[in-house]
């Protein structure tokens, strides 16, 4: 059993220690080494079944989890539902319980409501892995962001990471904040005042509403997607104005450190959060993030499997 890992479920990065986060990153690095040496398929989860319960639309994360499970030789079952679990009159908990009763050994859940994975963890016997709950946490996304930064920089300690955009509605931002600060990075959140929660500094981050000002001190820029679907009311006057103030283009990128990394959790709105030239440019590690996502999810599935086998 992996020393230092003591979690049955992976519900968020808030509850993980720096050591536990590092265990996941190291496990993902081991899987990368195996894949690079020509062994992409492993048999650690042979004979088990993983359920992907997606109560919110997702292509990328669901595919990544599904492929990660298959790389570990697990069977997978994908369940997708309309945004409301009650659409057929059955509750979310009952749906999950029924799928558990079919013999799955882990449940991966994506839900539009914060806390939905906690609810499942209370009612299911098998490990629950959070694949994004509303605007609260998206731990595997933050882990793959952190893994990608570590891959390019060796360590997180002392780096300045700026998260740009819709912090208010972003689960990616919250998970990144927990993970990055625990590993010793300085975090700046940058965006319009309407999209930055007032008390965010209590999580140990700095706030800026001026991207040009913070770029010269930034090592990594993570351009979050504007969550049009989670917004209500007028958070900013127009997309044009948003792109003018916070969009990353080549001119703006020139103000940043020469080796600054560009990250984006995707799917990106080209021309809004960043221009195609930046998205596809030399400093962009967006495609690395996608590949690393698979490794991170393999690592999480494997660690939870190991833990539940031994407890």
């Amino acid at each position, binding site marked *: 059993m992996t020393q230092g890992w003591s979690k049955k479920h992976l519900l968020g990065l808030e509850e993980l220690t720096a050591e536990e986060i590092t265990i996941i990153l190291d496990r993902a690095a081991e899987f990368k080494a195996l894949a690079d040496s020509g062994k992409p398929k492993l048999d650690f989860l042979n004979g088990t079944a993983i359920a992907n319960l997606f109560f919110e639309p997702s292509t990328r994360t669901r595919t990544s989890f599904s492929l990660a499970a298959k790389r570990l030789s697990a069977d997978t079952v994908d369940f997708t539902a309309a945004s409301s679990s009650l659409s057929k009159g059955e509750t979310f908990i009952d749906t999950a319980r029924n799928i558990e009763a079919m013999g799955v050994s882990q449940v991966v859940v994506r839900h539009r409501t914060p806390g939905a994975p906690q609810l499942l963890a209370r009612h299911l016997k098998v490990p629950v892995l959070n694949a994004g709950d509303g605007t*609260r946490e998206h731990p595997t996304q933050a882990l793959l962001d952190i893994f990608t930064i570590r891959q390019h920089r060796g360590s997180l300690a002392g780096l300045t990471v700026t998260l740009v955009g819709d912090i208010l509605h972003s689960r990616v931002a919250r998970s990144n904040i927990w993970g990055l600060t625990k590993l010793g990075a300085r975090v700046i959140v940058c965006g319009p005042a309407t999209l930055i929660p007032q008390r965010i500094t209590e999580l140990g981050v700095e706030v800026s509403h001026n991207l040009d000002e913070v770029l010269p001190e930034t090592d990594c820029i993570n351009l979050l997607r504007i969550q049009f679907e989670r917004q209500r009311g007028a958070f900013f006057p127009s997309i044009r104005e948003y792109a003018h103030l916070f969009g990353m283009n080549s001119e703006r990128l020139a103000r940043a450190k020469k080796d600054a990394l560009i990250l984006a959790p995707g799917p990106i709105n080209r021309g809004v959060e960043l221009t195609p030239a930046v998205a596809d440019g030399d400093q962009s590690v967006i495609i690395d993030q996608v590949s690393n996502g698979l490794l991170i999810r393999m690592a999480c599935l494997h660690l939870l499997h190991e833990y539940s086998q031994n407890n």
Partner: protein
Amino acid sequence: MNSILIRQGRLIDPSQKLDRTANLFIENGKITRILDEDVAADEVIEAAGCIVTPGFIDTHVAVREPGDEEDETVASVSNAAIHGGFTTICTLPDTQPVVDNRAAAEFIHLQAERAGYCHVSPLGAITKNNDSEELAEIGQLVDGGVLAFTDGKKSVANSEIMRRALEYTRMFNRPIFHHPQVPEMVESGVMHEGFHSMKLGLRGMPNAAEEIMVSRDIALVELTGGRVHEMCISTRAAVEHIRDAKRAGIAISADVTPHHLALTDAEMEKFDTNYKVSPPLRDKDQIAALIEGLQDGTIEAITADHQPHADEKKHVEVDQAPFGIVGLETALSLCIKTLIDPGHLTWLQLIDKLTAGPARILNLEQKGTLRDGADADVTIFNPDEQWTVDVTKFKTLSKNSPFAGWELRGRIKTIIVNGLPRTL
């Protein structure tokens, strides 16, 4: 002739600033005397070690009948009421259909009479179907025995409608009970807007939503000469506005709930929908202001704000669960824990919030007092008896309480309604 002697209890009656050990004599459904000596009576209730007070009054209780009888009925809610020490409860009109006409009000009276536990008095709707569009038949509701008007947990967002309602109800000397929230500021909110909502990614309901609505209501009372009662006040700013308005002679009153005193928004970290209430649980600073409001009389009443919901409605994702918890059976003990034990209120002050205060708000002259000639509604409880909250033993049909397992003190021993002792 039917008489009861309650012996050697600690009589606490804020309506006459009374707090002493004595006997209480009841004859033919009326309180007739407070005395030190023993007199012959048909029934003697020994009350040594107990506190004897006017029957508690709750100004607003959700009943769910008609429409959602799986949550609660008039019979079950009134049974829960007497187990919590309440001899009079007012029911919110937000049933299905809404109590916006005389027949609907009379139905509640009839069901309460059939159940036979305690006084149940319906509150009438301000607007038809609680839709905030057209005034309900307020005069006819008064004839149907309605003591006050409210749209329940729906705020009256339309200031013009609220203005007319305050003007119109003035004719009947009945208050408007209001749930003060600016609807567009709390839309889709599930908890207090603050540090924890930010961290959890849950939609918040800011203090300002309540503060703004209370300020508006004060302006409308000033304009109309009507009377408003703000339900479940939860913020410092609301308390301050109400305090200032009262000093200026404006007819406004307010109540708070025990759960807003006992719990903070940090509880939502558990993602347990039994902490989802409206207004939301706030932070410690707001709680301190609520206590100050109780101490100086700005807040005159305590309500359980009993909001029963069947298990299947609460055991869902936090944004889909309805607001509210059951509270009648834990109200007194929570008040002891949050107000008496820390020394925030004296017994006389606390009992005032449960008896004389609500009676004043509801214009009930014969209730909330142990004066000679008053209705013989009496609550007798042992303040020192310890108990553990076991929701399965609740008389309310719903079990949505965040206090399950809590160790509390204060047990209701006997309830007398209309001069008749009720079995508990």
